[in-house]
């Protein structure tokens, strides 16, 4: 059967791990201190479309009902939409993001000590949860292709705006210079 985690060429990864009682605050503080954007540890994984960690303190009461479904402990949810297969991605994760991965999952129940290498990868694998629905905005484009396209789009718009003021020959010349080879 086809994996429920696959949408086109992308893979939806979810890892759900209980946080060690009493360590929620330290984990939150560590996550809060991480950079966003280019400085994010997740930027070290170039196949990542979008990824995040979420501390889930408990299940709220379902909206409009009084039904409670307590988790019993706080959990860490990690989600990532990535290019390609999950095995090689987790391999890269423990290798390229080793320091941060050890710190984050080191706060979770059952995490191997030291939290690194093959043992950590196996732990993450074991705690993976299948997706209910996998969705990707651009299922057949890789992160690299999307970044290249965005850059080209920005350059084309910039050209189109400036081209309004150009004479035809000048417009043609600059277009070929900028986009002729592409």
């Amino acid at each position: 059967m086809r994996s429920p985690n696959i949408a086109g060429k992308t893979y939806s990864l979810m890892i759900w791990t209980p946080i060690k009682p009493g360590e929620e605050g330290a984990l939150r503080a560590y996550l809060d201190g991480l950079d966003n954007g280019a400085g994010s540890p997740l930027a070290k994984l170039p196949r990542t479309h979008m990824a995040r960690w979420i501390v889930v303190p408990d299940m709220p009461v379902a909206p409009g009902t009084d039904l409670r479904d307590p988790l019993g402990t706080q959990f860490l949810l990690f989600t990532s939409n990535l290019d390609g297969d999950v095995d090689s991605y987790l391999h890269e994760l423990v290798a390229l993001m080793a320091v941060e991965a050890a710190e984050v999952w080191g706060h979770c129940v059952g995490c191997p000590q030291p939290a690194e290498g093959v043992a950590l990868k196996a732990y993450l694998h074991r705690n993976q949860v299948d997706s209910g629905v996998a969705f990707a905005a651009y299922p057949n484009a890789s992160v690299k292709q999307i970044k290249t396209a965005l850059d080209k789009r920005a350059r084309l718009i910039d050209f189109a705006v400036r081209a309004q003021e150009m004479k035809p020959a000048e417009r043609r010349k600059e277009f070929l210079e900028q986009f002729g080879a592409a």
Partner: protein
Amino acid sequence: MIRAALPALELSDIQGDILRAYGNSYDCASYAFVRIDCEPEQARAWLAGVVDHVTNAAPWSEKPLTTLNVALTASGLAALGVSQETIGSFSHEFRQGMAARAELLGDTGPSAPPKWDQGLGTGDAHVLLTINAQTTADHRRALAKMQAAMKDTGGVSVLYQQDAELLHGAREHFGFADGFAQPAIAGATEDKAPGGGVPERDGRWRPLAPGEFVLGYPDEDTSVDRARRLPPAPTGAMARNGTYMVWRKLHQDVALWRRTIAAAAARYPYGDARKLAAKVVGRWQDGTPVQTHPHGPDPEFDPAAPGANDFRYRNDLDGRRCPLGAHIRRCNPRDALDPAGKLSLRHRMIRRGMPYGKVLPEGALEDDGAERGLVFVSFQASIFRQFEGVQTPWINDGNIFGLGTDKDFLLGEPSGSGKMTIQGEKPFFVSPQEAFVVTRGGEYLFVPGMTALRALVDGTAG
């Protein structure tokens, strides 16, 4: 879809000017932000004197010479002695305040909170008194009364005051008719439903549920699902008949706007500067929608007429009539995003803004250094979903409309780097997008109902 019958609105318990506008007979307004420097008991004694004069929403037979309305910031609730527990039941964004959300709102560069007018966005503004007056004499009298009451009690003073004045023809400073397109609300302004309500697939319009604008009533979510509780609201007395208010002072650089449009219009192949400006706004200066009249304003157009705003975007999905990024299309996309307007109906707000400052003489292309702009006021049940839900993804970004990172051209761009696409046979790009509009300050406020105001005075609001 079955809609439950809606309960009647308790108009005499809701403050005035929210559901129905006071109207254009009030030429002058003052927004006075009051700071409380005394114990809660003393502040409540002052508020007691104010509450007696607050204008509610009950229909009037004769318009009063002046009106008075009260709103509070989160720090204002604390200064009046409301418990932290009760304050905690208010929405997150309200408790944070507008300044803390500047990045999200696009208030950066010249619009960043450190550059705001002194007193705004610091937590020092506690109570907002809004005074409307029919004439300048009435206005002076009301202000004097307000000052005298503060002097009597002591410990409270006006921290910041912004006066505003209607411009001729109910225009804003860029020259456009403003403020006449408002959401139609069930039980209050149903007559505005064509063009103001929710566009339904069968061609009809229906008014919005009142809980979108006043707390304590079913909203668009709860009105179709009886099992659901009422929308989120603060606990205690403030749960009913109140609403959240957004107040922003937006400086307008009229000369810069005129120069930019004139320069772009010189290259625009499909019309003159008036037409280009209309494409940017989505309306001609008199208010005629570009969608219904793409070639010129309708000489017969009457913004007050029923159906003045009765139009949709379904027949214009490529933006050839009204550009996809036009200001009014961004702020209320109607059925542009889906046939039944489902993606826009939860993001409506009541606007009660007013211009401030003197008009820049017609034709002037150089700034005279005078302060002028718009006091933007909106009322909504959720600042996050409604005001911020428009400001952040719809005004400050273009992705949802297929416009990449384009922002609302009319509101400008602090870095002066943006552009707008006018769809057409050959698309036309308006650029550069300068900082036409700069935020001078603002606050997130709560407008309690009348019972809640009295509970605040009595110290029983929680």
